[in-house]
């Protein structure tokens, strides 16, 4: 006799539950299988193929692409791509760091606003968050134009030739990245700071004379959940960003995202593009593992 169980007040068999459950799961999971998991597998397979003389892909399997990724190209050992991967990590890291540094004061300020004011400020932060990233990025063209004081100051200090705009270069890319990801950190962080127990902070202030210690002992641990979410939502996508470096870096400051896009575009080398994507995937997995180890019970949403 099949065992009965009570599930959510419902007397039923395990098998019946499983059948019902699968019915619910079926459509969504099927979709994700076909259009997420399967393409992922195909991408992995394609990363071992090669580009033909004319065609973007030929079924000629080898480790060629990975060797090229690691630097063993026709021109001797040229670790260009590893360099780009590294640069992407660095950019993502600095972007996250600066965003965090700017987000804390912002959140404290918002929390300190009386009643209605908070909603106003939060809305002000949400609006750029929802604004299209292409618009937010190209808007910097105006601010960094040669006629405006920022570019004039930079050329005065000798960083750029006179009359030139303050882009494309690394600085502009960082500006674009930080302005893009700041709300990604600020909003989850705010959720944590809102729930902050200020009595603990006051106790810490009584105990420690150093402001820094007050921060690290009383504030930081409490805000860790929100901070972690913000950090992972910034770091990983930042590594794969290509719009910002493309518009504000002008191919002078290439990141992994640009490299992949180039392989699927003008260079027409899908297998190599797939291999680079795999490389980026590996970096993503590593970051996620580190994140998982560090954090405790954290809900994503």
């Amino acid at each position, binding site marked *: 006799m099949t065992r009965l169980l009570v*599930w*959510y*007040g419902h007397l039923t068999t*395990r098998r019946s*539950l*499983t059948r019902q459950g*699968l019915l*619910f*799961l*079926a*459509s*969504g999971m099927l*979709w*994700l299988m076909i*259009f*997420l998991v399967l*393409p992922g597998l*195909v*991408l992995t397979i394609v990363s071992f193929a090669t580009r033909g003389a004319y065609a973007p*892909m030929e079924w000629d399997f080898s480790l060629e692409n990975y060797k090229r990724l690691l630097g063993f190209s026709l021109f001797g050992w040229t670790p260009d791509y590893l360099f780009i991967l590294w640069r992407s990590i660095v950019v993502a890291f600095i972007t996250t760091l600066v965003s965090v540094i*700017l987000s804390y*004061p*912002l959140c404290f*300020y918002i929390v*300190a606003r009386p009643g209605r004011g908070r909603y106003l400020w939060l809305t002000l*932060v949400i*609006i750029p968050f*929802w*604004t*299209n*990233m*292409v*618009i*937010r990025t*190209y*808007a910097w063209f*105006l*601010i960094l134009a040669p006629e405006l004081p920022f570019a004039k100051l930079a050329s005065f200090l000798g960083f750029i030739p006179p009359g030139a705009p303050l882009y494309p270069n690394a600085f502009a890319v960082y500006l674009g990245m*930080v*302005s893009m990801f*700041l709300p990604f950190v600020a909003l989850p962080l705010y959720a944590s700071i809102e729930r902050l127990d200020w009595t603990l902070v006051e106790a810490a202030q009584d105990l420690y004379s150093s402001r820094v210690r007050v921060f690290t002992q009383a504030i930081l641990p409490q805000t860790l959940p929100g901070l972690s979410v913000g950090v992972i939502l910034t770091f*990983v996508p930042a590594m*794969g*960003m*290509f*719009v910002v470096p493309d*518009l504000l870096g002008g191919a002078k400051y290439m990141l992994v*995202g640009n490299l*992949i*896009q180039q392989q*699927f575009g003008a260079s027409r080398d*899908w297998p190599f*593009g*797939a291999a680079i994507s795999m490389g*980026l*995937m590996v970096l*993503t997995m590593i970051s996620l593992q580190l994140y998982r180890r560090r954090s405790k019970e954290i*809900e*994503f*949403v």
Partner: protein
Amino acid sequence: MRRVHPIITVMALFTMGFLYLPLVGVAIFSVNQARRGFVWRGFTLDWYFRLFDNEFILESAWNTLLLAVISTLIATVLGTVLAIGLERFPWSRRMNTTLDVILHIPVVIPDIILAAALVVAFGLLRYISSIFEPGLLNMIIGHITFQIAFVALVVRSRLVSLGRDIEEAGRDLFASSWYLLRRITLPLLLPGIVAGAMLAFTLSLDDFVISFFTAGPESVTLPLYIYAAVRRDVTPEIHALSTLVVLITVVAVLGTERLTRRG
């Protein structure tokens, strides 16, 4: 209201200024008569009127909206059903973790990897059927794929917070599974579903990378149009278009806040 150290105030205001400076710049130059350069030549709404003459822009706007609406509808249905399936049934620990991981993939990975995978997958699917040419269908498929995950996560968290009591009470009153679902669970879940749908809708409107890799010649969306245009030449019409988009975003954000505050 707490007292805040002046440094914090300064930094906070600086940060907000930093966020808004570019957008304000675009708005200002969308009403400047000058075609190029930074001289203020007078206020004009000409550039905005020009937008409505431009067939491509109108078509891109239509495509963007169509894409967002269709993909959101399908993704919300699929995502909600998926969330119910995940949360309301007893799965083994391993099953739960696997499903959880698959669900989180589109949320966490850089979207360019997903885009690359779709390009390759569609390239191969084209050998089977030619409906997989780059175009609206591919874009819808791409959008739904990442939207499902977001919707499912939002709805699931709402399900978790609902708890068991109501449903158990319903069962006590001999409700059938279908009745339970339709009359009790779904209505209670509605705020979560709406929130998920709004999230999916906005993600689709804003999406650039997935659209870029799957778009065809007739399915250009506004973000793609703006990107191609600014790579060539930045014109006040683009500023006008962008400002309009930002204004619509503002309206949408305020609208969403109203709706969710009710729910």
